[in-house]
């Protein structure tokens, strides 16, 4: 039975999404994508640094992988909307990850501005994936605003601390009908498996892969963890109990 993930007009067989940030060499990216099987990867838009010359991350992304431009650097709804429109006009398609941040210490997203941008961009036909502080009420509002998925953070971006906001994310997973993608803070494959066991529809992992000593092998490790976690979720994980439940018969002892 197929277990594809549908977001907007696209179907994904692989539930690990990746990012292009912080690779020591960008030429590793195609091998990482191949090893992980990741079908969607994020990019950012910046002013050209005239000293360093222009770069083009796009040439390292194979044609069969969907590009998810983010609005990183945006501090307001208007800035995010502008970046999204530029990315689409530049030919990157309709997917957009809304990322609106003013807090530089923890890089916490601004849910209020994100909701505004989601309304505007979904009305313009974008497939909007908002990066949010986990919040059930905002998640309902984002659904109404036309979001195609929500991306609650597990812990601060690049912190590798795992899913610290687990209970709120579980509430979101249980209660909203659009895909939930756990984004940010996933530092190791076991964190990714945990998110998938909770019933997350996908995870987005950048730093933990790109800064690994061997990003290609780490990409594969994350992919396997995501698959394992998804399978466990579908197979229905047993309930936790306070006391033991013997797994060997409690009768017929040899004594």
């Amino acid at each position, binding site marked *: 039975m197929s277990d594809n993930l549908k977001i907007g007009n696209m179907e994904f067989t692989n539930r690990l999404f990746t990012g292009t940030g912080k690779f020591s060499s960008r030429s590793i990216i195609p091998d990482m994508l191949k090893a992980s099987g990741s079908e969607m990867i994020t990019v950012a838009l910046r002013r050209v640094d005239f000293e360093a*010359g222009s*770069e083009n991350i796009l040439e390292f992304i194979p044609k069969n992988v969907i590009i998810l431009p983010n609005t990183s650097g945006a501090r307001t709804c208007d800035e995010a909307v502008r970046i999204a429109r530029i990315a689409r006009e530049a030919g990157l398609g309709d997917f957009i990850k809304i990322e609106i941040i003013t807090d530089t210490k923890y890089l916490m997203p601004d849910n209020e501005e994100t909701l505004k941008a989601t309304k505007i961009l979904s009305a313009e036909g974008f497939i909007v994936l908002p990066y949010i502080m986990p919040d059930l009420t905002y998640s309902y509002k984002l659904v109404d605003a036309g979001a195609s998925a929500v991306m609650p953070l597990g812990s601060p971006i690049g912190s590798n601390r795992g899913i610290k906001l687990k209970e709120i994310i579980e509430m979101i997973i249980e209660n909203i009908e659009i895909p939930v993608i756990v984004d940010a803070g996933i530092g190791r494959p076991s964190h990714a498996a945990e998110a998938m066991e909770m019933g997350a529809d996908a995870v987005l992992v950048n730093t933990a892969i790109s800064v690994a000593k061997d990003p290609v092998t780490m990409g594969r490790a994350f992919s396997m963890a995501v698959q394992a976690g998804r399978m466990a979720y579908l197979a229905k994980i047993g309930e936790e109990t306070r006391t033991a439940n013997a797994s060997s018969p409690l009768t017929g002892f040899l004594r």
Partner: protein
Amino acid sequence: MEVIVNGKIEEIESETILKLILGKSLNPNTLVIEMNGKIIIKDNWENTKIKQNDKIEILNFVGGG
């Protein structure tokens, strides 16, 4: 004439977008150009004239999560 390129005032001689890019020794294939809030597609770089006080953004896609 004076224009604003990537947020900084610049005195330039170039009269078209394409000349401005080439003057900065940038590879045109990697760029996205916005002028006064509007994207200028690559086909129009050669015939898009720059005027005094135009706001030009020379952008590119970079690694990010």
